[in-house]
């Protein structure tokens, strides 16, 4: 066990090119997915927080429930969509990083939208009277709130990033864990562990945790600085 650890550290230290490729692809896929999901999910959450329409509560409950969507189920759905016989089969996206980005976007979208909805609704209850007094309409209010609590919304985005970078099921199914093409950290860890190559699996695990930790630390510091600056 101790041997596996020191070998793992050695792998990280030697900056193995295979390892580096896996890490870069992981980051590309998960960050792209989170970016896409934020672009859709944050405005969606803001709209849900501010707009009043019939069925709104049902939509909110459904969205909250979707936060717990199992990655393998999302993977399966995207697989069916992109497989050769599926409706989008002609695009030939299955087993490509693009397919992985699509699956992770769908997985993360409800998390970002639901958490953003909650945060923006809390802010809305504070701002509503003032904004309505100024004659601000719903759409305008949603945009104002998105911008005004942008640093708090980092938490929602980070939760999405955590989910995307940690999941195996979706990327495994739609990516296929093909070496050098669609292999990411989580699928590699699963594979190497089952093969018994514990040092590589451990090295990848340590890198994964370090990256997630660094991103969260950066976001925390940014939020703190913003709080001091803007109150």
């Amino acid at each position, binding site marked *: 066990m101790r041997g596996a650890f020191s070998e793992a550290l050695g792998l990280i230290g030697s900056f193995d090119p295979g390892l580096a490729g896996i890490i870069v692809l992981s980051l590309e896929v998960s960050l792209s997915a989170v970016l896409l999901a934020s672009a859709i999910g944050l405005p969606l959450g803001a709209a849900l927080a501010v707009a009043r329409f019939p069925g709104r509560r049902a939509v909110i409950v459904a969205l909250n429930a979707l936060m717990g969507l199992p990655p393998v189920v999302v993977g399966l759905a995207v697989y069916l969509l992109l497989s050769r016989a599926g409706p989008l089969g002609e695009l030939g996206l299955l087993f490509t990083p693009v397919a992985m980005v699509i699956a992770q976007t769908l997985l993360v979208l409800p998390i970002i939208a639901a958490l953003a909805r909650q945060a923006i609704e809390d802010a809305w209850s504070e701002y509503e009277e003032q904004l309505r007094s100024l*004659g601000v309409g719903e759409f305008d209010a949603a945009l104002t709130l998105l911008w005004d609590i942008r640093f708090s919304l980092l938490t929602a985005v980070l939760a999405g990033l955590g989910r995307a970078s940690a999941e195996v099921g979706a990327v495994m199914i739609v990516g296929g864990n093909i070496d050098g093409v669609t292999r990411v950290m989580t699928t590699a860890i699963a594979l190497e562990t089952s093969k018994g190559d514990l040092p590589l699996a451990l090295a990848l695990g340590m890198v994964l945790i370090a990256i997630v930790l660094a991103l969260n630390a950066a976001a925390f510091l940014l939020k703190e600085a913003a709080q001091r600056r803007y*109150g």
Partner: protein
Amino acid sequence: MNRGSILPLRLEGVCFGAGGRAIIEGVSVELEAGSSTIILGANGAGKSLLMRLCHGLLAPTAGAVRWSAAERPGAARRQAMVFQRPVMLRRSALANVTYALARANVPRAERERLALEALESAGLLSLAKRPARVLSGGEQQRLALARAWALHPEVLFLDEPTASLDPGATREIENVIKAFDAAGTKIVMATHNLGQARRIGDEVLFLHQGRLVERAPVERFFSQPESAEAKAFIRGELPWAVGRLSH
């Protein structure tokens, strides 16, 4: 610019209920331009609610709130409100004012000039670039007044604007309110501070349990209140005036 005044404001049998309980009951009153109106009453009498109904933040459950010139959707509002706790956006003091001006369809080129003027009249010019949320409570309330000032409203509603401020900050706020009054804005203010009511008000609307019980010029209200409820209220708030009131 040929547009009639939105005043007088007519309330016709306005009621507001929530959860089966009536909070405002059958208030009928006409508010004219010129005089400053103070809304007095104990906690829970419905002062804030009445102003929200007037300002259009709430719709009455019965009765009607009629302005002499109706608001057109999309057009700039000609009334403004300052709340007990100011709500500021996370941007500079200046940007908070230009934000309001943008919503009032003021052309971009004029916003900054108007905003700076408004900040100056509230004594906040030196704080224009500071983030609004890190200002003190009194400064934020003055900023809320500056934001309203920039809009040049015909009517300004104030909901206990100095309730959580110290005497110094309160005096500064009152000065800005007086400047509004001098510039011709109709002031409608709810307050707990009877001294403030006297300093700013011309007339008093006295609410008791959601009903309009008395309306009188400010001096007469304090020296010779007519209703038993108003007498009890003044006695409670100004115990030393009891002797004077008893005859």
